[in-house]
């Protein structure tokens, strides 16, 4: 947890953010699915959404820009952060500056 991390917001706020993040992923990667059909705990890599390492980088770029914090490619926590839509959303919720 970094020094300026926020705590997790209330569940409804988190759900709304999750849908927003799903929308960002769909738009960034031109996916052929509706954002609300991406299961919160389905894996983003491999089966599930089937993203590869370049896709993850692209998502990191749009997330960094939209929520105002750096998602660095060499962050060892990335495997954990990008495991699922839920884990990514929670990470954004605690790190966002805008």
């Amino acid at each position, binding site marked *: 947890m970094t020094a300026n991390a926020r705590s997790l917001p209330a569940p409804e706020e988190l759900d709304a953010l999750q849908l927003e993040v799903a929308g960002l992923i769909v738009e960034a990667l*031109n996916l052929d699915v509706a954002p609300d059909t991406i299961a919160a705990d389905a894996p983003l890599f491999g089966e599930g959404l089937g993203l590869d*390492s*370049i896709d993850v*980088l*692209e998502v990191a*770029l749009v997330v960094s820009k939209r929520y105002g914090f750096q998602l660095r*490619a060499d962050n060892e926590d990335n495997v954990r952060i990008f495991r699922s839509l839920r884990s990514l959303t929670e990470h954004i919720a605690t790190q966002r500056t805008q």
Partner: protein
Amino acid sequence: MKRRRVVVTGIGLVSPFGGDALDFFGRLLAAESAVRFFESPDVPRPLAIPAVRCDGFDVDGVLGRALAGTMDRFSQLGAGAALAAWRDAGFATDDRSEKTDCGVAWGTALGGTLAYERGYRELWLNHRPRISPLSVVLGMNNAAAAHIAILFGLANACLSYTVACASSAVAIGEAFRRIRAGEATVMLAGGSDAPHAYGVVRAWEALRVLAPGDADNAPRACRPFDSGRSGLVLGEGGGAIVLEERDHALARGATIHAELAGYGSTCDHTHLVRPEMRGQLRAIAQAMQDAGLARDEVDYINAHGTATREGDPTEIAAIREYFGGRARHIAVSGTKSMHGHLLGAAGVVEAIVTVLALRRGVVPPTAWLENVDPDCSGVRHVAGSAERVPALRAALSNSFAFGGSNAVLAFRTH
């Protein structure tokens, strides 16, 4: 007669980061530099320069020791890249049957200079009366191409192009022309170089174009377009693409990475090292006209961008002259900032970056670009981090060589 179209169905390279082409691209997107401080064991003055190396390349594992032993490093790097590209194209890498409609076009600036240096050391320093019988086949400039042809039974033309920094861009362009002319269906095009031979590096140092650096700051030694840029970084590497006639690719259900739509090849005919804006301009124009591209269709240019004082502004001037008002909207990146100057492999590796950028809609940055030199302004420099460019339609890859030869490749999204 409808003109034949040519597409890219396979890509492969030997990466300084140790992974495959996609991993390489991902690290460029993350602005990761492969430049390190390289110290050689030469005496009395060891080499000590920022450089890009492929130390993780498992030569024996990829090629087998028997084959690797008949190759100088530049051929090993080339064969490694060619295997990856051929496999990526969906062709069997153990099929040596004769393929008369498939050929090789390979670029190398230096050829087997490491083999020559070993030979000279034995003869002149160690006073051996004779050298290994393999010396000729190790050192000859066409060795990489020949090995690649043997590996896959490539029986069409097998040619090697030596055009300094533009060698593999030229190889790709000439292979493109051969397919378009109906003289081949598939061409394995690429290039490789291993430039860290002692004499070679000393020669480059004498030209005063190598970026200085030490163990701490080596990764940021190459800074294209920055007002603090200080020269280029020599790298070893190998890259290959499979070019294929479009109908043939579609018929066999090949994955198509991008279309190679145009090629410009010109000469400055002015100076041996100083670049000339008008020669580069003509190459850009030729590639654009060959591809039938309008100025406002080009969304990205992978620059030659070696980070020399003279070269960078000349290239930007040529881009601005051709594209006029459109220039400031075109994303430009100098990826040598991260992978160094691969000489004979530069053209193909940068073409691979351009193809992947088109395919994925995201362009890598010019790393270490903090203050754009006023002489290099006027285009949309992608600095610091990668940029998504949705609906990327067409891109150029530039290679402007010592000696004045210019090669520009124009790719379209397929």
